[in-house]
């Protein structure tokens, strides 16, 4: 009986130690493990100019402009705190649209704008049929 309790205590201590160690490691990773910068982070911490980074947020409503050459576009990324204008030349993913999430890979320019080399679409955790979503999003975007 006694040996069993001793083993239980040892195992629980080991779990506590491993859990505590990983919590420490994770809190140290907190900033490094982020997948992208939000516009608000950039405003707070300064521009990481010249480095390859990712910028993530929502595409601002009515901000997508397609340029005359047919493959370039400009849009604005916002997180509600700050906004960043983005220039991109290339093919955007199907789910790239206004008022939806985007992660742009590229780098910041000294003037605070962002030049993207690749776009990823980010969607949220909501799933619903088009009829219910119809009031918020036009269903024609399904075919787009």
């Amino acid at each position: 009986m006694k040996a069993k309790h001793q083993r239980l205590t040892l195992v629980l201590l080991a779990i506590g130690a491993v859990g505590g160690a990983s919590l420490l490691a994770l809190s140290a990773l907190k900033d490094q493990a982020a997948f992208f910068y939000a516009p608000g982070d950039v405003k707070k911490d300064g521009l990481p100019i010249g480095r390859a980074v990712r910028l993530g947020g929502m595409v601002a409503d009515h901000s997508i402009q397609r340029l005359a050459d047919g493959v370039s576009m400009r849009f604005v990324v916002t997180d509600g705190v700050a906004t960043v204008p983005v220039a991109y030349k290339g093919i955007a993913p199907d789910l790239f649209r206004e008022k939806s999430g985007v992660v742009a890979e590229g780098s910041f320019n000294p003037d605070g704008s962002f030049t993207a080399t690749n776009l990823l679409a980010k969607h949220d955790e909501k799933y619903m049929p088009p009829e219910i979503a119809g009031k918020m999003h036009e269903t024609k975007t399904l075919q787009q």
Partner: protein
Amino acid sequence: MPSLHILANPARFLKLARPLTPVLFWLGVGLIGIGVWGGLTQTPPDYLQGETVRILYIHVPTAWLGMGGWSGIAVSSLVFLVWRHPLAMIAARAIALPGAVFAGLCLATGSIWGRPTWGTWWQWDGRLTSMLLLFFVYLGFMALVRADDDRGGDGRIPALYGIAGSVLLPIIRYSVVWWNTLHQGQSIGLTKSTIDSSILWPLWFTLGGFTFFFAGIVLMRMRTILARTKAEARLRRMANVVEVTA
């Protein structure tokens, strides 16, 4: 724990596991069938993703069982280390392979889903990376169990590894909360879901179905391990008899 003691007896366990295996297996297959039929033919497409959303009915159960499998290994390892129940380590060994397969399927279906929605097969974001780590941790556990067997170990080292590996589970679960990730946040909580009920319902069938299926496979593998141990013991006894009479 009297309830665990009953199952710790392999003979009593086998008496229960033998009829239970096919019940779990076929119940699982049936529920998966209903869920897949519903998910492919009865539910509406998503407003944003269109038909692509249907891979959800496979992707979510594989993620659940990839993580649930390791929870099983961790609990079995704890029971084995503290109470020394021989069946607990057999359960952990039986869970390892199907758990790894489901974690691998989760990564594969996620990748197939990511290409049309996000525009990428793979990104090193918090959720994807921590799930890949869990897959490797499974492979490590299987290698460790085999190595421990080969050197005649008592299973204590793999059991410690099984407990240590469980730190990944909260990391995977909360990766989308702690860090900003490409993967979206949690859709299904204990009380509410952000998936509309018209899209959600087949998921319950595939979740339940894959879980029963998984349990059936695990029981099957536990019986196999027990039968092999018994056969080896008999061979060893026969070898002894031959030695004595020769």
